[in-house]
């Protein structure tokens, strides 16, 4: 049997209009056939740029120096989602949730333990050489640039490795530097760049090969609010250019502001996947009570959590006091009972407000932990 990439992939753009009708019928037919190329065709017809099915990754590492023990971490526990062409999709999750692991698998840098993923119809395990030129990725942080070269030289070097025509380079590099706002500083060594500038240079770097799908793993990590806003501006520009973007972050407002849909991921599992508006609906019926408390004790936390009308409690330790955030459907009516549970402690300020996406996120992530704990406790 003959089954080639080139053969099966239709020319970009032309078929898109025609496929509108076919999209409703063809996938089911193609999906049933085992042939990978046909499945890819189905994906294309469904207009999904990214298709992830039961993706799973286990890390094996050895711990201990003398008695080396094999330790397994299941970083991603069989997640599935798809991202439409031109969509800006967010993955939101706490530290260690498995965001980076997922992105690494999708960018062909890491092999999945099981499950499949296709990007633009290419399998991330097998079609590596066809896929790589069509995607771009950045990992948050300062590494991944040649610090002793200028920003301009970094871009020149990478575009040469991407085998971009020198004539094209000469036009594209200045354009990209302009896009990310580094035109003035392009000839300085990267060493002297601020974090935000390095991060923007990273974005320019991924755009060198004009990728159709971009993976941005925590692009605003460690940046001050102004620098983070600059990054978001660039991401928004890219979204408006109809690039398919997968963005990971643990800043809710960032996801809220930018993404069309968000997958909330915790401990390797997707706990929710929806539009920001729908995710907020999780907490729609709730109100949030914020209490600034002096000398907040763990018992008090337990007591608050034990109240029947309280859904979730988070505590942020501050310099002078603790900020206790309580989610409850009763809202303002709950305040007096909450205060009653805090007997002894000094409450300095009470605020009742509408829930935000952050509260939805807390609830999703916490709620999952809670059920986990109960499950473990009953054993």
């Amino acid at each position, binding site marked *: 049997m003959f089954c080639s990439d080139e053969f099966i992939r239709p020319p970009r753009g032309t078929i898109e209009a025609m496929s509108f009708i076919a999209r409703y019928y063809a996938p089911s037919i193609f999906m049933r056939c085992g042939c990978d190329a046909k499945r890819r065709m189905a994906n294309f017809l469904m207009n999904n740029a990214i298709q992830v099915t039961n993706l799973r990754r286990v890390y094996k590492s050895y711990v201990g120096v003398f008695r080396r023990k094999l330790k397994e971490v299941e970083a991603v526990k069989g997640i599935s989602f798809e991202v439409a062409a031109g969509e800006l999709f967010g993955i939101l999750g706490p530290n260690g949730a498995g965001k980076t692991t997922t992105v690494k698998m999708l960018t*062909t840098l890491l092999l999945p333990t099981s499950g499949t993923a296709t990007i633009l119809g290419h399998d991330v395990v097998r079609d590596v050489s066809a896929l790589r030129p069509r995607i771009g990725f950045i990992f948050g942080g300062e*590494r991944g640039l040649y610090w002793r070269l200028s920003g301009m*030289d970094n871009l020149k*070097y990478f575009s040469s*490795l991407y085998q971009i025509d020198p004539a094209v380079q000469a036009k594209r590099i200045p354009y990209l530097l302009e896009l990310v706002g580094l035109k003035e500083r392009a000839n300085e060594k990267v060493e002297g760049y601020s974090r935000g500038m390095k991060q923007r240079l990273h974005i320019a770097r991924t755009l060198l090969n004009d990728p159709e799908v971009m993976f941005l793993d925590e692009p605003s990590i460690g940046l001050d609010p102004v620098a983070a806003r600059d990054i978001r501006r660039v991401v928004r520009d890219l979204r408006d250019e109809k690039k398919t973007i997968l963005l990971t972050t643990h800043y809710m407002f960032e996801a809220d502001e930018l993404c069309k849909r968000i997958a909330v991921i915790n401990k390797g599992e997707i706990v929710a996947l929806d539009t920001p508006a729908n995710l907020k609906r999780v907490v729609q019926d709730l109100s949030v009570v914020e209490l600034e408390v002096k000398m907040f004790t763990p018992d008090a936390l337990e007591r608050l959590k034990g109240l029947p009308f309280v859904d979730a409690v988070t505590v942020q330790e501050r310099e002078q006091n603790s900020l206790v955030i309580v989610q409850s459907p009763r809202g303002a009516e709950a305040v007096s009972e909450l205060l009653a549970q805090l007997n002894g402690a000094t409450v300095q300020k009470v605020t009742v407000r509408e829930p935000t996406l952050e509260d939805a996120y807390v609830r999703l992530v916490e709620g999952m932990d809670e059920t986990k704990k109960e499950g473990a406790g009953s054993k």
Partner: protein
Amino acid sequence: MFLKYLYAIFAAFKMNFLSLVVDGFFIFATLLMPLIYALIAFGILRDKGAHYGIFVAVGSGLAGLWTTLLFGSGNAITGERWSGTLELIAATPTPMWMIVFGKSLGVILQSLLSMVASYLLGWLVFGYPLGIAQPLEFFLVLFIGLLSFIAFGLMLAPLFLLNPQVQQFQNALEYPVYILCGFLFPIALLPFWTTPLSYILSPYWTARLLQAAAGGTLAWEQLVNESIYILALGGVYILIASVLFRIVLKKARVDATLGLQ
């Protein structure tokens, strides 16, 4: 298509050369170390007669070349790993071995300077006549030999990455190659069983041809035959290197060792 790869190799070459010329260790390895070798060898071989001048100049230049390749290409991947760029360059359409090849070219260019330096040393300080009897042949062999030498060095980087234990031998690998390739004395001094080892090292053939060309005893037939052999060995090295690179990159995807976090 082919041109694009050449262009990428050139970019790696340029970038590496520019960062090496200011590196203290490399200035030492490419310029000073071969000079000291040359000084010692000129001193030891003084009684051998003046015609050994060119022999020493060529030999210590090649020795410097090996040292720089050993450290330069040997650490090419590890360095990218430290700067966090390995994942990024692994994702480009340019094969990793080509990037390392380009980087090695940068190393080589600097090393060529060291050959010139030891040549001048023998001429100016020791007063040896250092004429190259067959200059055309000499530079032809030099060109072919260097390409093959780089190919040899290419096998190091993936080997070191695959097995860190092997890298402990990095320093210890310096002299054995000098010896087996007959850079400064003929391999006839060695026990017979080491001869096959010399024969599979292309720098051995390169040194032989260079010395013959410098001394004016190189026949065309030998030149053609051995040059072809040098190129063939180079091809085999590249083949082995590309397989090793593929294994390394595959392994890195399985073990998550491409990055360093």
